[in-house]
């Protein structure tokens, strides 16, 4: 993987109706061979970005570069970008082999070479026996595999996938997630992948771009994204998260003291806050909350909480608490032999390490 930018969005904007910007100031650059996922809620502009890259929509403003070359004026069929659509878009009047042959035929590749490539591509997705079938005779997962094979058969360097697994059931989705990442790395292709499923994004990607409101909210590898969200949208959107609202009282030694709305004090790591008096939302992951006083620092601030619900989930326990006037505070604990099982109605004290709790924008 070299670090030269292969795909670049520079200050890209897009509006469909001339009134609302669907994509606002998009800057993104990814090196060759990277698997980048655009993650975001529905309507956040992910598909629009992908379509601009593929050439089916034109950017209202800004520049999109592929391999250092601006592609704003190159028509889609000359961009050489492979694409997998959410509904697969397999041509219904052609067999599987004809579907795969199509991109090779338009590239004027000879018959025998075509056949070889089709065979390799089908074998790669374990669909070698289905060459003569029509798409309608295949299951959803099989159609997805064919769509993938078709996008790869003409050996593009860049492949775009728009929610390719959206219509499949959970188990199949997991199998295919693995197969797609595996194939991408094996072939060394660059992939821009769009999904609204955070698990998919986290498990598959080298980096994830979290989209909201037409902007990239954070662009980071999966672990950083989960552990170090840069704003409250990302913290909320990725994984399970507890938020508490309050005002910064003081910032000292890289740690902030936050006074919650009910007056209680907690420690947090200042991320998006810089001075006392600012409103903030603090975010803490359920598995980082501690109620065993021995494991907390002596001077740590704690909150009193009431157990509302205890859910046994096998590998973990999920306990819902009432904290600082909110009753959606969740903690997760591992099912270990010495683990206490809390009972509803029980009063406990909870706390955390200051660096696990992030004071973000309000």
């Amino acid at each position, binding site marked *: 993987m070299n670090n030269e930018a292969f795909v670049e969005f520079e200050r890209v904007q897009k509006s469909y109706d001339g009134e609302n910007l669907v994509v606002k100031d998009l800057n993104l650059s990814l090196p060759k061979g990277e698997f980048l996922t655009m993650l975001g809620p529905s309507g956040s502009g992910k598909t629009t970005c992908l379509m601009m890259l*593929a*050439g*089916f929509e034109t950017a209202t403003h800004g520049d999109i570069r592929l391999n250092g070359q601006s592609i704003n004026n190159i*028509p*889609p*069929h*000359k*961009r*050489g*970008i*492979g*694409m997998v*659509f959410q*509904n697969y*878009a397999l*041509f*219904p*009047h052609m067999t599987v082999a004809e579907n795969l042959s*199509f*991109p090779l035929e*338009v*590239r004027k590749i000879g018959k025998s070479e075509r056949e070889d490539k089709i065979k390799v591509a089908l074998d790669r997705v374990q669909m070698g026996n289905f060459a003569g079938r029509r798409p309608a005779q295949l299951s959803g997962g099989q159609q997805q595999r064919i769509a993938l094979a*078709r*996008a790869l058969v*003409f050996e593009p360097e860049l492949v*775009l996938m728009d929610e390719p697994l959206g219509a499949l059931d959970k188990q199949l989705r997991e199998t295919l997630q693995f197969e797609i990442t595996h194939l991408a790395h094996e072939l060394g292709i660059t992939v821009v992948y769009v999904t609204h499923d955070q698990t998919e994004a986290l498990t598959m990607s080298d980096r994830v771009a979290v989209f909201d409101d037409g902007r990239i909210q954070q662009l980071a590898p999966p672990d950083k994204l989960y552990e170090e969200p840069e704003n409250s949208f990302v913290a909320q959107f990725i994984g399970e998260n507890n938020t508490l609202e309050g005002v910064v009282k003081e910032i000292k030694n890289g740690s902030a003291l936050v006074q919650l709305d009910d007056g209680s004090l907690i420690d947090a790591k200042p991320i998006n806050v810089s001075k006392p008096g600012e409103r903030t939302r603090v975010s803490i992951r359920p598995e980082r909350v501690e109620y065993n006083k021995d494991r907390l620092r002596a001077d740590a601030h704690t909150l009193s909480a009431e157990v509302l619900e205890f859910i046994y989930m096998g590998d973990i326990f999920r306990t819902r608490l009432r904290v600082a006037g909110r009753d959606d505070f969740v903690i997760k604990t591992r099912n270990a032999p010495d683990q206490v099982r809390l009972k509803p109605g029980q009063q406990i004290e909870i706390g955390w390490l200051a660096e696990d709790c992030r004071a973000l924008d309000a």
Partner: protein
Amino acid sequence: MSDSTHTGPMLAADGTTLKSSLNRALRRQKLRALMLIAPLLIFVLVTFIAPIADMLFRSVENQIVSDTLPRTTQMLGDWDADAADIPAPQVFEALYVDMFIATERKLHTRLGSRLNYELTGVSSLFRKSGRKVEDMGEVYQDQFEDLDKFWKKGANLNALFGAPDWQAAQAAWDTSDKKAQPKFKLRSGLETVLPQASEAFDVYARFTQGEDGKNLSKAKPWALIYSALYNDLVAQPAGLAALDAPGADELRAAAARVGDFDTVDFTAAFKKIDKDWVSQDVWRVIKTYSPRFTNGYFLNSIDMKKTADGPQMRAENEQLYIKLFIRTLFMSLVITGSCILLGYPVAWILANLPAKTANLLMILVLLPFWTSLLVRTSAWKVMLQQQGVINDTLVWLGLVADDSRLALINNQTGTIIAMTHILLPFMILPLFSVMKTIPPSYLRAAKSLGATNWTAFWRVYFPQSVPGIGAGSILVFILSIGYYITPEIVGGTTGTFISNRIAYHISSSLNWGLAAALGAILLAVVLGLYWAYDRIVGIDNVKLGG
């Protein structure tokens, strides 16, 4: 417990076979469903299936000849149409009987019109003969009446021919005049003594009481009865001596004298009416069309004629229908083709525009449906004529010289232009609804795979729109093949369709049999094309939408 060990039929809980209990359960459902659709079914049967069946029947039905001239056609069976002679005198005698009855019943002119389709002039021949046939047998009537006053009175004949119980009933009815006239009944045993006269009297009595609605007691007997009576008496029937009936004595007296009667030569009598009656042509036509069913209408429809030697092509200058069929098919194809060419892009634009604009344009497409067909066609007449808008524009643009304006109307061009316009919505609508179901992602996928706009359209979009083309083409083609108002108005003589001819035969020449045969052929052609289409394209490939 495996199913493979169970060989007999599956049994339901009550021991009957599963199949029969399932059938019983389904029967009620089916019956209820049938009752729901019954009104429509009856409506379709009465208004659609029945007329078609009637039309198909009319195209071969020919009972009018043998119904009107039953005796003549039967006698003609022995006549050799190829021989040079006219039929035997007995045939003319039979013709006299048939014509007499037909004239009384006023059926002879209808038969004349029918046979006139096959040989011009027969209609007037029959009309002329009808009037004169009534007088033909009066020679016998006069001689009977001269012989004895007895024969002058209808009441005497009623007494002779009628059964005694009928006579009593009739006499009672005459005075009361309340209920329906008692139906005439022939004296039993008389038909063996006087076969022809009995038959003639029976026909006369039934006609007078029935169709004519007159009082038989006061009616004047037909001359026909006297000629029949003469024939019977000349044969000197054996049972006459023993006959016991009012007037039996007069009958016996007449039998003794009929040998001296003047006779009528029916051949000569018919010849005197019109010498066409002794021409072989008339008799050949009657013989050819004697059977109750005929293929004559169909032969006519394909420019052939029925002759005594079997079907033959008509002379070149009489041929008409095959040319018209071919023209109809050819022009329908051209119209379908131009509808595809014009409709496809429109449908494509409609299917790819935002819904709001598409709806507006769709209204424009449907607008022609809101104006009368006649108005639209007449508008084309104005547009297309030599001094019309289109020619004016072409002259103004300098594309056409003023003295050589294009002939766009009253020919095939006019029909094609006007009908393409009128049938265009039938092409656009199915195309549109099929194109609506083709997701734009197919085109995008094709382009992302490296196809140019044209390749993407031709290899990916077009094949998926073919079902729409198929549905539109079938609609337009079948509609245009049977169209007749527009070709009638703008087609002139060279741009008319077979349907114009059918309309002519239905409303002007009244040759419904020929119209039915032409219609049946048209129906067969359409079904044949439909079958061919199914074989080549597959009828599953026709989509009117989703």
